[in-house]
């Protein structure tokens, strides 16, 4: 992490019995995490509980509601849809986005700022604001309520995201390497396959894994465009809670825990390729003055 080497310590961190401000800082952080643990823990414990009402701890534990949830919500189908959508989005976004990032990183051209703005807007504007006109257009062309519609909608923020993460990455690859390869007689194809591609792999992996996390977690766009058999896990989860009532609350909680586990697995994978800060700040970071 770059931040680790950023500041030689002005404050004097070796004082263990720090100032009150240090204690307050850590107290706020601890308070945040205790409540977060409560929020997450309640769902996890409840999903395994036989009955839990009004006591500190449930009466007993069971996995019965897990299998109930699995059947009731067709979780196999939902997981397959989630997988299909996210793989399609990641692959298409990379195929469209990486070449665009290459052009943006290597060329200065008229109207470049306008092109950058087009790539920046979908990341800045919140999904619900452009999601409704987008869904309207998709309905008009009979693309909504289908897997295609969900994939197209999720690509809207994903393509710019790949472009914005890959542009600085490609900028720091020395163009002289490509020039040298050409001098040595490599064709465009060879330059791409044997020189550029291997250099691009780490950046593409990082961008892909970030898009994956965002797509699986993307609620609004999927919610606005999905039909009953094209909803991803997070939308199925929301619908289960919104339409809750007759079902045992444990089974919806089981689905919530399944979603949580999916996201945490993705997070662990993601953290192998990127910094924690990159998960949120990459785009904003690059726009730093």
């Amino acid at each position: 992490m770059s931040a680790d080497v950023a500041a030689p310590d002005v404050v004097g961190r070796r004082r263990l019995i720090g100032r009150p401000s240090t204690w307050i800082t850590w107290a706020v952080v601890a308070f945040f995490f205790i409540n977060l643990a409560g929020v997450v823990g309640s769902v996890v414990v409840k999903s395994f509980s036989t009955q839990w009402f009004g006591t500190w701890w449930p009466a007993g534990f069971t996995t019965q509601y897990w299998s109930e949830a699995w059947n009731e919500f067709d979780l196999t189908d939902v997981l397959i849809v989630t997988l299909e959508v996210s793989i399609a989005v990641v692959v298409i976004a990379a195929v469209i986005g990486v070449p665009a990032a290459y052009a943006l990183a290597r060329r200065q051209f008229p109207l470049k700022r306008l092109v950058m703005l087009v790539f920046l807007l979908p990341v800045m504007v919140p999904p619900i604001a452009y999601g409704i006109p987008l869904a309207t257009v998709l309905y008009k062309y009979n693309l909504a309520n289908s897997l295609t519609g969900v994939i197209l909608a999720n690509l809207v923020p994903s393509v710019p995201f790949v472009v914005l993460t890959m542009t600085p990455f490609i900028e720091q690859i020395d163009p002289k390497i490509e020039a040298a390869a050409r001098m040595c007689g490599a064709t465009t194809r060879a330059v791409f396959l044997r020189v550029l591609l291997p250099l691009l792999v780490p950046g593409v992996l990082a961008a892909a894994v970030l898009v994956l996390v965002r797509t699986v977690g993307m609620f609004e766009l999927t919610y606005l465009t999905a039909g009953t058999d094209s909803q991803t896990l997070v939308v199925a989860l929301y619908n289960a809670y919104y339409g809750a009532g007759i079902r045992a609350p444990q089974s919806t909680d089981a689905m919530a825990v399944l979603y949580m586990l999916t996201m945490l697995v993705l997070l662990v994978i993601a953290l192998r390729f990127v910094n924690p800060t990159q998960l949120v700040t990459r785009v904003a970071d690059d726009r730093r003055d």
Partner: protein
Amino acid sequence: MTPVTSASTSPAPNPPAPTAERSGGTGRPALSHRLAERGIDRTLLLLLPGLVFLILLFIYPFVYGLGLSFQPMHGSGALYNYQKFFSDPYERDTIWITLKIGLPAALINVLASVPIAYRLRGRVRGKRALTTALVIPITLGTVLTAIGMIEYFSGTGWLNKILIALHITDIDHPVPLLHNYWGVMLSLLVSGFPFAFLLTLSYLSGIDPSLESAAATLGAGWWQRFRDIVFPLLAPGLAMTFCLNFVLAFSVFPSAVLLGDPERSTHVISIAAYDAAYQEYDYSKASAIAMVMAAVMLIVISIVLFARGRLYRGSSGGKG
């Protein structure tokens, strides 16, 4: 929006004369050469798929939605949807309700993250663990946070049990944090604070630490260093953090439905737009509300960014 500069000010040198016209010698070497000198050559074709995609699925829907909003399904006159929205207090108030939730939430998140990030800007034990832990609520997302809060804040949930055990409240009067304003606000703090904190931390680590060391050498205390050195350099970044956080808070949807009181006190503008589209099937009205939403958001962001433009804009000495 100004901050598009990263690419144009990039350290990458403009590569020497591209090879395009050499290999694909067209009949007009002069023109292609002239274009290539301005940076236009076949490499730019690589931009096309991305641009076409965004024009078709981002720009076109927006323009289409704008056009549609002027063709009301009911009523007459192009501005009917907008007139209706602004004359009906139930709909008009969604703007205030959303601002009342979004502005304080974004402000609290930014203000809370500054001192904490400032304390953690150097090498601190456990910083990597802390940043990783803070990514978790962001990764889990608003839907799961809302679901967890339903359990945690409920009258029989752990939070109220703790408060009752501490004699802060009693069993008949659990702290009302669900199905009202506070539930939505707290969900925005849970998902927004880590976001603001990580952004602020990354802005802070972009400030050259030797500036602060210099001030310390000259005898400045921590408050002086913060007020006169760090804060002015950080302020533009904070404005950006506030904007991004506000945008998230302004478009709050799942938690406003699940944790709030979606018919009344948390009838935010995104719920109004959603209901118009999917309950009334009036896409024209829904588009109009979405446009109002975008406009309000744009106004708030421009105000903040305008104020930011008046702040110090020089180099922060960061390593980038």
